[in-house]
């Protein structure tokens, strides 16, 4: 039932360089005609609908459950609570030997416990013939509680925060030299605190699951960023073989980190289908998403900087406090960019975390870096003002040649070039430095700049490539498409690697029955799949060459792989040498197709793959610091009467290595900037500190940017390959949100003379 795009092979298309071209996304037509089906849109005979009952206390025990009224609603098939739910295995503890253990949204074994751990925790699920009946009945389930004391207020709980320890993937504290002394002795210094509120992803598609059991075999339709891990998780929770579990996810209606974990809705849909013996669909309400899917942690940060009078940084302190849920969540690498951005002899970095009686936090676009660069890059601007120095000049004055903390080489770093390009496109020299000096009628005009920075990652991916005798190619890998244009990019890569037209390549993805792909996170997917795909294409070409060489009259006889070019639908000895088409080779050999595979999906293969990945990861980490970076330029207009802030211009200039698809890359970069504009100006999850309850669990009161908030966004990239990455590409999904909030807050300062250090920068803070 994998729903992937197929294209006829048009006759007479020539092959050539597809990588880099602005090719239209391959699923564009499906998405603009309504043909693309998302997780809640799969019809099944006998399909039923589920709805959740949410706890309305933050901590306590369930003392009573009355389901009589709910069960009496016409069409209701089952009301499942902890009193009658079948046992599930608890979520597994995190184990480095099995990365799928990272995917539990929380440690709670839903409906297998009378304990309540956060306001919104599901305490029941209703299954009915219609969605309306399920929702109505869910509202009629009466639950009594014995409340226990809960700690939910982040502002009040910060004193209990504990410093984080280092781990191989998450470096913790840095103590290089004596930053405090250096700052105290510095000619110029700033020491400032910043705060950021909780955020939610708000993908326009609310989380939805359709689950169908057939004996011990389970099919799940779900918009997910980690289908392979979801499969493992569900197999474990329900005690069935993973091979019988299939997660299908061809279209994901936005995710941004929010669909990376397995949250309650997924597990409870599968449970409900088990209980009722019917296919069950649970499409969460928007409020249900807020109550059961984690968001971005709030943060409190301190940045202190010291510099000599000429702008040479002498000390940097960046500390952060974030929160997790007591039932799960991860610390955020808030100070990560501060390790790498400035050449400072004395650096102190420390992240601390406090667990609260709230739902787990989870990754949201550039976790850590998006909020960390707000504080760091705003503080740099504050220092530039103290120094009376251009903020770009200050940054370039302190641009390091090697990593400031451990002296490692940068695999690739073209921040200077990004700034030069961005400053030119933006017209930075026209800015007059004095705050309030660029008025246009009632509008106070401000220009701000900040650095974008995001580490680049690469995971392992199993890929198969099959070449058919008609010259068409099928790439198969269980990766994820949440809008990034993954299938389009990988088709471009395969087309060039094999020398076939782009239109000849079909990419299958979003199905856990495919070779295991990487989880979509850390901006790593394109590079991860590309590495596997390129290796598979090389294997495939060797297999084809071997076939050709078996034949006495092949012009490729005697040729070695490295002598050959893949182009024009075949293999050729150099640009003008002899060769032949794949069709000719396969036809002569009597083969319908040739297939090559990288990686193995057996248990042993998985462990080997994981070991290889970890070995490569650690080797890379020893050698290089890898990252995408860029320069964010913006112009804001602030109403001099009301304090309303409008972003009027944006230029983003990025170093993201090789660009695979000029069109979708620009879209990704713009998308991150748009989300950053929301984070800077309007987004905030309102969690009532008295109760721990989210009070704006909807799109009317959680203000994501609308069309009218967004100016034309001019994005540029240097398109210089990173030599340590496949094809030289660096992921683009997250770097573009970093630095955005700082650029805006710096521009607002430039416009108004007011520093707003507490996001979002709403007009009340400017009056």
């Amino acid at each position, binding site marked *: 039932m994998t729903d992937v795009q197929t294209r006829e092979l048009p006759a007479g298309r020539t092959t050539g360089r597809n990588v880099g071209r602005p090719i239209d996304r391959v699923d564009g037509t499906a998405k603009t005609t309504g043909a693309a089906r998302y997780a809640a849109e799969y019809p099944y005979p006998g399909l039923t609908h589920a709805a959740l009952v949410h706890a*309305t206390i933050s901590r306590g025990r369930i003392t009573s459950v009355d389901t009589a009224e709910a069960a009496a609603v016409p069409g209701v098939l089952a009301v499942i609570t902890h009193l009658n739910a079948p046992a599930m295995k608890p979520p597994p503890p995190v184990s480095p030997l099995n990365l799928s253990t990272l995917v539990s949204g929380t440690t709670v074994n839903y409906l297998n416990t009378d304990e309540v751990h956060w306001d919104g925790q599901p305490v029941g699920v209703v299954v009915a013939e219609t969605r*309306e009946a399920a*929702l*109505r009945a869910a*509202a009629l389930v009466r639950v009594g509680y014995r409340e226990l004391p809960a700690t939910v207020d982040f502002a009040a709980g910060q004193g209990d925060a504990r410093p984080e320890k280092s781990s191989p993937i998450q470096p913790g504290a840095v103590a290089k030299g004596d930053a405090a002394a250096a700052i105290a002795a510095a000619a110029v210094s700033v020491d400032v605190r910043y705060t950021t509120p909780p955020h939610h992803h708000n993908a326009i598609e609310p989380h939805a699951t359709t689950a169908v059991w057939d004996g011990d075999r389970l099919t799940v339709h779900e918009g997910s960023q980690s289908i392979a891990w979801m499969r493992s998780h569900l197999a474990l929770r329900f005690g069935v073989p993973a091979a019988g579990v299939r997660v299908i996810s061809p279209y994901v209606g936005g995710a941004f980190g929010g669909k990376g974990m397995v949250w309650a809705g997924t597990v409870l849909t599968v449970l409900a289908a088990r209980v009722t013996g019917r296919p069950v669909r649970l499409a969460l309400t928007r409020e249900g998403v807020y109550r059961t899917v984690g968001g971005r942690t709030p943060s409190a940060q301190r940045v202190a900087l010291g510099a000599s009078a000429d702008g040479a940084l002498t000390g940097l302190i960046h500390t952060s406090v974030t929160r997790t849920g007591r039932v799960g969540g991860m610390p955020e690498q808030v100070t990560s960019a501060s390790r790498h951005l400035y050449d400072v002899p004395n650096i102190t970095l420390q992240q601390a975390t406090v667990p609260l009686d709230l739902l787990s936090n989870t990754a949201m676009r550039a976790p850590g870096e998006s909020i960390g660069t707000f504080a760091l890059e705003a503080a740099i601007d504050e220092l530039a003002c103290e120094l009376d120095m251009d903020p770009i000049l200050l940054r370039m004055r302190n641009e390091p040649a090697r990593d400031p903390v451990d002296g490692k080489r940068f695999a690739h770093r073209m921040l200077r070039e990004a700034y030069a390009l961005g400053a030119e496109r933006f017209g930075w020299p026209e800015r007059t430095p004095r705050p309030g000096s660029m008025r246009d009628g*009632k509008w106070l005009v401000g220009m701000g700049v900040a650095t974008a920075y995001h580490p680049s990652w690469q995971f392992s991916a199993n890929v198969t490539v099959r070449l058919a005798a008609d010259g068409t190619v099928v790439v198969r890998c269980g990766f994820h498409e949440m809008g990034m244009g993954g299938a389009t990019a990988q088709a471009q890569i395969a087309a060039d690697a094999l020398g076939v037209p782009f239109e000849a390549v079909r990419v299958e993805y979003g199905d856990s029955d495919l070779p295991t792909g990487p989880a979509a996170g850390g901006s790593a997917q394109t590079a991860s799949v590309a590495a596997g795909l390129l290796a598979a294409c090389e294997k495939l070409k060797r297999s084809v060459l071997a076939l050709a060489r078996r034949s006495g009259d092949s012009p490729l006889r005697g040729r070695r792989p490295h002598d050959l070019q893949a182009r024009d639908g075949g293999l050729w000895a150099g640009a003008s040498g002899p060769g032949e088409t794949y069709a000719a080779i396969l036809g002569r050999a009597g083969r319908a197709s040739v297939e090559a595979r990288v990686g193995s999906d057996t248990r042993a293969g998985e462990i080997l793959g994981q070991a290889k990945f970890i070995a490569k990861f650690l080797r890379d980490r020893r050698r290089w610091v890898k990252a995408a970076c860029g320069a964010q330029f913006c112009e804001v207009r602030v109403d001099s*009467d*009301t*304090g*309303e802030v*409008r972003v009027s211009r944006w230029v983003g200039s990025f170093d993201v290595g090789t660009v695979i698809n000029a069109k979708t890359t620009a879209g990704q970069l713009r998308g991150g900037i748009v989300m950053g504009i929301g984070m800077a100006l*309007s987004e905030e999850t*309102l969690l*009532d500190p*008295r109760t721990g*309850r989210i*009070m*704006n669990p909807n799109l*009317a*009161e959680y*203000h994501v*940017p*609308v*069309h*009218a*908030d967004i100016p034309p966004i001019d994005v540029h990239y240097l398109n210089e390959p990173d030599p340590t990455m496949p094809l030289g590409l660096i992921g683009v999904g997250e770097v573009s949100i970093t630095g955005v909030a700082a650029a805006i807050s710096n521009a607002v300062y430039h416009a108004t003379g007011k520093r707003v250090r507490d996001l979002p920068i*709403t*007009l*009340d803070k400017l*009056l």
Partner: protein
Amino acid sequence: MRPFTYLRAPDVATAVRAISAEPGAKFIGGGTNLVDLLREDIEQPGTVIDITGLPLTGVEELPDGGIRIGALVRNSHLAAHRLVTTRYPMLSQAILSGASPQLRNMATTGGNLLQRTRCLYFYDGAAACNKREPGSGCDAIGGFNRQHGVLGVSDDCLATHPSDMCVALAALDATVETRSEHGVRRIPLVDLHRLPGTTPHRETVLAADELITAIELPPPPSGAVSRYRKVRDRASYAFALVSVAAVLKVRDGSVSTVRLALGGVAPKPWRAYAAERALLAAPATEESFTRAAEAELTAATARPGNAFKIELARRTIVATLRDLLAEGSAA
């Protein structure tokens, strides 16, 4: 949603008869607010009477130069109607600054008057709210009240009326016409909504069986300029933090006509009579505008979350009048 009986009324008399016969019934027009409130279980009518088939969809010119707007005229149609764009451009501006084009295509004029507050605690069944559940308390006090009112609020309720259109109507001296079994009633728009006091669940002076049939506007003050100014957290598609509807006419440097109404700051569309009194016959200067704004806002009371609204309202009033002064001088 709770089950309900659905009736469709073919004419006004039937609609009015039906609602008299069904205590707790609700009229439904565009449904943009009611359907949401039904889904949230905040409204719980046993019967829903569809009035969209009633012949109340016209905008007509009145003999005195005013206009009569049928209660079922869609917001978008009203905003684009030539009689409105040419004579009452402020009303167009107010409507167009509210909600979204889709919602404006559905929402009716009558329904807009009766839309309910967006208070976060009113919307959350787990919270205490005197408006939703009389006597339960008010979680907005001591909670998130950044959007809440500073004028006309009480210790039982801080909620604001969310309409933009009503603010313009208040400034334009609109009259609401209703029908019930007891006949026709005409109510000045500024008297339609009640202040919360100790009974915030009673939001209007309408009886349960009363149907809004029309809004009438007197002719616009001749020679005056007008404007609706909305301040909010996004550039579009967000409720007002503060809005100002202002009509101004200046003769020989003095204010000869002024109408001022405020949105986002009160439980009802707030006609700023104190400011108007302070302005009338005063010199048309920034100082007068400021004094007038302050005259209105001396009565304001704020909570920590919404104290900024007093200053924001002051500034928005002054800025809007300043803009109108410039526009009037230029004309």
